[in-house]
């Protein structure tokens, strides 16, 4: 991989807030320079973040030759992967949102959204034609607004024409909302329900997020770090803080994304592989092809509602080293609750780690204490090893079932062409990669079950923080042009304009690339290439004569890592 010098010379700070630990890592000149671990502070993640940050800065000073004092001011970029959004939703600490939708004819919206929306009249059809438009009923809206400070609006087919959605936002201005999120600006892709929920959840976590960002900025200033601060998104991209404010829900599920990026930085598989990051609380499972993690084709589910938040094709399974173990009359249960640290490390209740230690699959803590943990569940003549084996077996089976489910999901992704069917997109794994503390033993057993070779890359202790530190900035945008109607639209940009002459695929690419680059410059994003994610072109026919073309183009600054760090340099 070619890495421009200006990128190599960056001093990158990455922070990852995990379920148990908050990790921080400083990467300089392509190598791990310093790292630190601190307890995650659950109720408010900020103190934990700052503790890890201060620790890693101290560590950096120690490691440094005395003539070259590292200064916080030398850091060129900070990326934070935090659970702030995830926690806010989990704990229900979100704002009430006024939601207005323009659903038009079609499926009933009942139960599709987290709250019953105000149903605005008006409709845009699939070609972007306005079928109806009507002003809101101010009395009803005033009643529904109540004490709500944040609003979300969304219209069916607004990605084809935003005029109705914009008008709706304008109508709502009189209610002086702090902020109004608009579905079609958050995602240019079809799926009204998902866009609506994305706008809703963005609004719901907005003020929490604003507060978090304010505090982060203040803390950085206090430490003389004046580098731009980015947050990690669920799709593995880094986004400047200010830009993230426009789409706060994108910062959900960043832990799994950081884990994938960490693997990409340390040991990207060169075959079709499944990676398993076995942490304390969860096992994050991802699929790999050509050294790249696969992206999910559909958006994430947030609090049980479908959104357009892009993620990797991943599952976070509630099985980890600290998983609680219980015995019922039907057998052992492992997870999804976290029991705390293993008894081998002085904990109070048996965990999966204790089972792994007992059969010698991992080696830490006091193995006698682990054995005692197993004894608690032994009945009659059972040996502690028998108990441990049965427990580990349950965990391995759970992971295997999740992988099967993910394989099944992947195999039913939509196919639109004969070519899709013939070439196929079946995913046949050839390799398992295990990272994380409890990975070595567990994944080896899984490999035996699945008849797959297993790799356990070295030095993946702070893989998530490394992933965050090295995350590339991403931007995504879509363009749809209808030459019969003579317009193109880039919903993410709020642009709808007349087509330039001689419009074709290349003109579409030029337009979209230009916007992406302008946007990147606005956020001072490190220059990188744009790539085409999807392209469709259809000839349209009216009365047996060709009337024009419909062109759809989706491009992005691709997620990924800035560069790889060699395993040797990471090993600790």
């Amino acid at each position, binding site marked *: 991989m070619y890495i421009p010098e200006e990128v190599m010379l960056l001093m990158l700070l990455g922070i990852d807030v995990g379920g148990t630990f908050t990790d921080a890592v400083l990467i300089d000149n392509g190598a791990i320079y310093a790292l630190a671990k601190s307890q995650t502070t659950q109720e408010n993640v900020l103190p934990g973040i700052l503790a890890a940050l201060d620790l890693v800065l101290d560590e950096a000073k120690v490691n440094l030759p005395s003539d070259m004092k590292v200064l916080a001011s030398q850091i060129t970029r900070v990326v934070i992967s935090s659970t702030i959004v995830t926690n806010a939703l989990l704990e229900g600490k979100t704002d009430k949102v006024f939601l207005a939708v323009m659903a038009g004819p079609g499926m009933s919206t009942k139960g599709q959204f987290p709250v019953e929306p105000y149903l605005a009249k008006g409709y845009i059809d699939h070609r972007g034609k306005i079928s109806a438009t009507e002003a809101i009923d101010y009395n009803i809206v005033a009643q529904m607004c109540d004490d709500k400070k944040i609003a979300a609006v969304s219209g*069916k087919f607004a990605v084809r024409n935003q005029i109705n959605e914009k008008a709706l936002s304008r109508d709502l201005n009189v209610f002086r909302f702090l902020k109004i999120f608009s579905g079609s600006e958050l995602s240019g892709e079809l799926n009204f329900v998902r866009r609506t929920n994305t706008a809703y959840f963005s609004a719901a976590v907005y003020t929490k997020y604003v507060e978090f960002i304010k505090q982060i900025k203040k803390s950085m200033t206090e430490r003389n770090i004046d580098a731009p601060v980015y947050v990690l998104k669920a799709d593995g991209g880094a986004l400047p803080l200010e830009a993230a404010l426009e789409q706060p829900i994108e910062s959900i599920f960043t832990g799994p994304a950081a884990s994938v990026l960490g693997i990409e930085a340390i040991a990207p598989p060169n075959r079709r592989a499944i990676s398993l990051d076995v942490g304390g609380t969860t096992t994050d499972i991802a699929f790999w092809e050509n050294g790249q993690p696969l992206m999910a084709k559909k958006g994430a589910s947030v609090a049980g509602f479908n959104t357009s938040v892009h993620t990797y094709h991943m599952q976070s399974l509630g099985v980890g080293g600290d998983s609680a173990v219980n015995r019922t009359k039907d057998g052992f249960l492992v997870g999804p609750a976290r029991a705390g640290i293993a008894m081998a490390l002085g904990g109070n209740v048996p965990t999966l780690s204790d089972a792994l230690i007992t059969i010698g699959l991992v080696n830490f803590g006091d193995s006698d204490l682990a054995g005692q943990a197993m004894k608690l569940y032994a009945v009659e003549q059972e040996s502690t090893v028998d108990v441990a084996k049965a427990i580990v077996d349950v965990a391995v089976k759970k992971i295997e079932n999740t992988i099967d489910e993910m394989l099944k999901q992947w195999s039913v992704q939509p196919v639109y062409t004969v070519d899709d069917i013939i070439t196929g997109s079946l995913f046949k794994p050839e390799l398992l990669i295990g990272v994380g503390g409890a990975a070595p033993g567990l994944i080896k057993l899984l490999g035996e079950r699945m008849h797959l070779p297993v790799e356990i890359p070295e030095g993946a202790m702070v893989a998530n923080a490394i992933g965050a530190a090295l995350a590339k900035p991403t931007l995504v945008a879509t363009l749809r042009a209808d030459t019969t109607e003579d317009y193109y639209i880039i919903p993410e940009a709020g642009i709808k304009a007349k087509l330039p002459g001689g419009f074709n695929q290349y003109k579409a690419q030029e337009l979209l690339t230009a916007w992406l680059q302008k946007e990147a410059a606005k956020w001072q994003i490190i220059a990188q290439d744009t790539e085409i994610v999807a392209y469709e072109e*259809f000839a*349209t026919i009216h009365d047996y004569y060709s009337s024009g073309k419909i062109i759809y183009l989706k491009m992005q600054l691709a997620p990924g890592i800035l560069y790889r760090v060699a395993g040797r340099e990471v090993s600790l």
Partner: protein
Amino acid sequence: MIPNLGLVFFPAFDWMLSPTHPERQERLLYTRDQLVEEGIFDLPQIREYRPRMADIKDLERVHIGVPSIAKLITPAHLVSAGGCLTAADAVMKGEVKRAFALVRPPGHHAMRVVQGIRGFCTINIEAIMVEYLRAKYGVKKIAIVDTDVHHGDGSQDIFYHDPNTLYISFHQDGRTLYPGTGFPNEAGSPAAWGMNLNLPLLPGTGDDGIHRLFDGLIRPILDEFQPEIIINSAGQDNHFSDPLASMSVTAQGYASLADKLKADIAVLEGGYSVEAALPYVNTGIILAMAGLDYSQVVEPDQSSLRPQGINCNNRVDQLIDEVGQIWSNKEKTRTQALNQCGHQWQRNKSIYYDEEGIRETQKETAHYCNNCSGYLTIETTATNTRFGNQKAYIVIFNSDTCENCRKNAMNYAAKEKKNGKWDYVLIQDKVKSTVEKL
């Protein structure tokens, strides 16, 4: 809880008959847009399936291609037929309650013998599914309700001798629309009389008319027949905006019909109002089949919807009476006809393949037997096919054709082979799912 509906969606964005043909890539584009925008594929009541490719064997359980079916199809046909088989499997395995194969290319104009493309169809995807249901799952009694605006002359041809397949088609009167057939007197061969029910409607018939027909005739007949499986050939060109036909049905009309019919498996057929009808009709049918609220699925533009003419319901009432009689008298009529014709029944067919300008003449003979359902022989001559002029002698064995019949038929075939009149002598064996050259 199993999902209410299995949905096989395959728009074949890389298959067309020609760039400006109704069967072009764009056909299901707006339907895809509508379904994705509505969030249909995310609903817990709906499970999406990826179509598989059918085998040539699946095709040869139904069709005899001249010179072979493999030479006449494209991979797209194997996917659309395979999509139907995927839908059938989903229902038969109990993974979903019903299924909809929203696939193209379509099939209901494809007849038993295939020389080329007619009415946009090469292979009959419903018929392939029917024979698959029988071969794989042992299903016997099947009803097909064809709601396409065109008479499904291919399905009629294939099931004309089959007393276990009830084929009911309502369509715009053949005197005003392709393919020109589909009248009540085409009610089946003597052994299957009354199992092929044609209901030609007046142009301009709308929601009221088709529901009157369904409630007054189709529903009671289905109730009496008690099929194990109901299939809907879900063409959508009765829609008021269809460019090829002249009917007045709306998305609501189609959706509530799907709701009443409660087909086990629906298969898309025609429908060429790709922008104004298909997105709404398909959304409506899917929601209805999934047991969801479809009441708000209304075309945004109904300005070209004309109210149904007065005569339309008169025609409907006349059909309820006339076809109702055929249905109730079918056993009596069958016995009489069989007695009259003896061991053989013959029909001559002249078939035109509009897509390729092929003319085919067929002499089809049903050979009856007291011990089995007998067998068929077809003598066919076609001019102007992709392979030039072709003559073939074809023998078709049913799944229960007895040894004696098989021996007799093979003797005939050998004789025909010897006389040199034919380019091909072909034997279709439904037990082996093969078509072999003698």
